[in-house]
């Protein structure tokens, strides 16, 4: 293990074999044998794909105000509108927006916010976790103490605080695009601690192992060690946390939009649609609430089930 080419090769081989282990053996076998996992994967795939390709699937573009006809408002599903005669698969909402299209576009917003927030939390959590685990000392104390506080400080309050502050700092012209990014940062910030804790724990364990010691001895930088040796070892728990966090993030977005800090009504997310729809719960326009709610439930439930299964399959010790 002293000549240079071998050093470059070793981690790659290690990574590859881990990937193979990950895909080939146990996991795939258990996956095939779990109907829940298969079904929820299919459902998630269908939902994600229809969100991604919403512009191609959706009959109308609900985000384009010029295309809306207010007289189409409140059309029940599969029934022609009394004034315009138009028929909509899942009906229309108060603005005459096709509910089916709005759900597809709304899911895009929800998924975008959810995925981006989780990615943000993941990058932040992994970075801070690696650093605190590897460096230790004061750095570790500060990071983990912040994490403690963050963990006890409820996510919705964090989000409301950030929303309030961001509103003050965003120039007036950019306010309407701001909402989405603030949601991402707010949800991401309230979620990084789990990643940081898991990664730090694993780093503490890995750090003492011989291969890391060896890498250090041959003069690899801490950066390279953390990234190429330690990180691959914590990927599976991170994946589980990420999946469950995704479901949580989508729900959190919905909750925030109820408190009035969610996606704007002209570009609604599923959560915004539910907030709007709940106003029509008593008035008989059940489809405005029901369909977005069922979509959100299906999405979050399948992601949750998938996460649940992943957790058991990847590591029974992990919670």
């Amino acid at each position, binding site marked *: 293990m002293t000549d240079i080419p071998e050093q470059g090769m070793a981690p790659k081989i290690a990574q590859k074999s881990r990937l193979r282990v990950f895909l080939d053996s146990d996991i795939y076998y258990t996956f095939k044998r779990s109907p829940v996992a298969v079904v929820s994967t299919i459902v998630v795939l269908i939902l994600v794909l229809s969100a991604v390709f919403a512009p191609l699937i959706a009959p109308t573009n609900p985000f*384009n*105000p*010029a295309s*809306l006809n*207010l*007289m189409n*408002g*409140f059309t029940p599903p599969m029934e022609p509108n009394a*004034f315009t005669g138009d028929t909509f698969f899942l009906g229309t909402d*108060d*603005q*005459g927006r096709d509910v089916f299209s709005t759900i597809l576009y709304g899911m895009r917003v929800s998924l975008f916010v959810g995925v981006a927030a989780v990615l943000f939390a993941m990058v932040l959590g992994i970075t801070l976790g690696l650093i605190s685990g590897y460096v230790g000392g004061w750095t570790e104390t500060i990071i983990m103490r912040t994490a403690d506080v963050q963990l006890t400080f409820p996510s919705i309050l964090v989000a409301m605080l950030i929303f309030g502050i961001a*509103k003050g700092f965003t120039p*007036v*012209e950019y*306010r*309407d695009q701001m909402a989405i990014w603030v949601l991402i940062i707010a949800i991401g910030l309230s979620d990084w601690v789990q990643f940081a804790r898991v990664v730090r724990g694993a780093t503490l364990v890995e750090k003492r192992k011989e291969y890391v010691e060896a890498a250090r001895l041959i003069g690899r930088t801490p950066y390279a060690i953390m990234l190429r040796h330690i990180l691959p070892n914590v990927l599976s728990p991170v994946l589980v946390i990420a999946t469950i966090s995704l479901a949580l993030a989508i729900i959190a977005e919905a909750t925030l939009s109820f408190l*009035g800090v969610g996606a*704007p*009504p*002209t570009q609604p997310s599923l959560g915004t649609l539910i907030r709007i729809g*709940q*106003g*029509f*719960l*008593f*008035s*008989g*326009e059940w489809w405005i609430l029901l369909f977005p709610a069922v979509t959100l439930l299906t999405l979050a439930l399948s992601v949750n089930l998938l996460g649940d299964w992943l957790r058991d399959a990847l590591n029974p010790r992990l919670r």
Partner: protein
Amino acid sequence: MSRALTIAALIAALAPAVQAEEFTWAETTDPQTMDPHAVNSAAVLGFLNNVYEGLVRRDKDMTIEPALATAWEPIGDGEGWRFTLREGVTFHDGSAFTAEDVLFSYQRASNEASDTRSWFAPVSEVVVVDDYTVDIMTSAPNPIFPGSIANWMIMDSGWAEANNATLPDKESGNYATLNTNGTGAFRVTAREPGLRTVLEPFDGWWGEVEHNITRAELTPIQNPATAVAALLSGDVDFINPVPIQDVARLQQDDDVEVIQGIEARVIMLGFPHEADALKFSSETTDTNPFADVRVRQAVAHAINVPAILQTIMRGNAEEVAQLVSPAMQGYSPALAARPAYDPDQARALLAEAGYPDGFSFGLKCPNDRYLNDESVCQAVTGMLAQVGLRATLDAMPVQNYWPELRADNYDMYLLGWSPGTFDAEHPIRFLAATPNEEKRLGSWNFGGYSNARVDELLPQIQSELDDATRQAMLDEVAMTLQDEMAYVPMYVQPLVWGTRSNISMTQRPDNFFILRWVTVN
């Protein structure tokens, strides 16, 4: 057996006499204070109208009728008004009502610390003639003065002094913030801010009792869906407002009734008349198209008000072409027609003004101030987009909205206006007059609309005693505002109340809920 029957019969016979007619109601917000001079808001004044009284009050159809004053007449050639006070009236604590209390209440309500100060801007002096006669002198003839003080409530001077509440304290509150001592039909027996306020009839009230309530309780319920649920399940007897979309559903329910009327509030769009350029446009950044009357007319023609009323307001509102609704004094019947919905004409007007492809701009809107305000703004955005006026909608809670408008952060905005005096002069003073801090004019004229003729007519309208001459001037102002499309009035907001079917009550057009007109059947 027979004895039991006798007792049962006895109880049945007695029941109506001892049965407590309890009444609970819910509103969106709690009155923030019990001090009638601290805050000039409909929530506070509407509630306190049940507890305190003014010299005059408004009847079921909004006409002015005697309350603590039995009669009033102009003094000389419009130098003021003489009020003859009602004798034998007592406050809830038993002390007698006299002219001293009127003078005290004038001093209190017109003080700098009071929010109702502006009502007394025309007043030069209040003179106590004797115990039951008061002269209120005005600096100029003021024909509508008695109508403008219907919400000026009389407080007992002795009570206020004894409790250190001679002036309202908005900042830190005082005894009168939580406690009351009026002459009204009801007295407050428990007050827990934000939770509940309990009222009981005042036995010593001077008026004739129409209601049969023995105890009434107000609870604020913020979430409209919860309020509707509370009414449907019978947890409350009355809610205000009913969300527009739930009207049909409540009408179908046998246990619930919906009382509808037209409110005084006109919903309109406003423009930045004075701005040099648009603030939220991606391409039109060096000019202000809304300064051109043709562009403003294009906006008026582009908006399909009937469609908004049909869908979003569910047929519960009425179109309007002026800054006041037809129910107001001084409305101009000849100018009732709104610009027709005509997208082609709107496009033509835009082309004529030099914007054949339209332009983009920012529309500001509150989302918790007026009925379905956010939905209406969304619909407006869509309709304007169809003629090439591409609005970016920014809807926000009202606490962020007014500061934004004051800071001129808009290219177009939504505004609702309800004239406190129920007179067409009111919106002219606040919305159409050129903003003038010193004269307290145009304080809600955010866009700085300015027309010399309107400014000239306003003081004349204010002091004109002859109805026909006054109306002619009001007509002229209304016509000018329409011609110049200073605002685009859209519709008059409806009043929608919901009650259990065993309740009967009267809805007053100013949305004040008057408890003494309620009977529980």
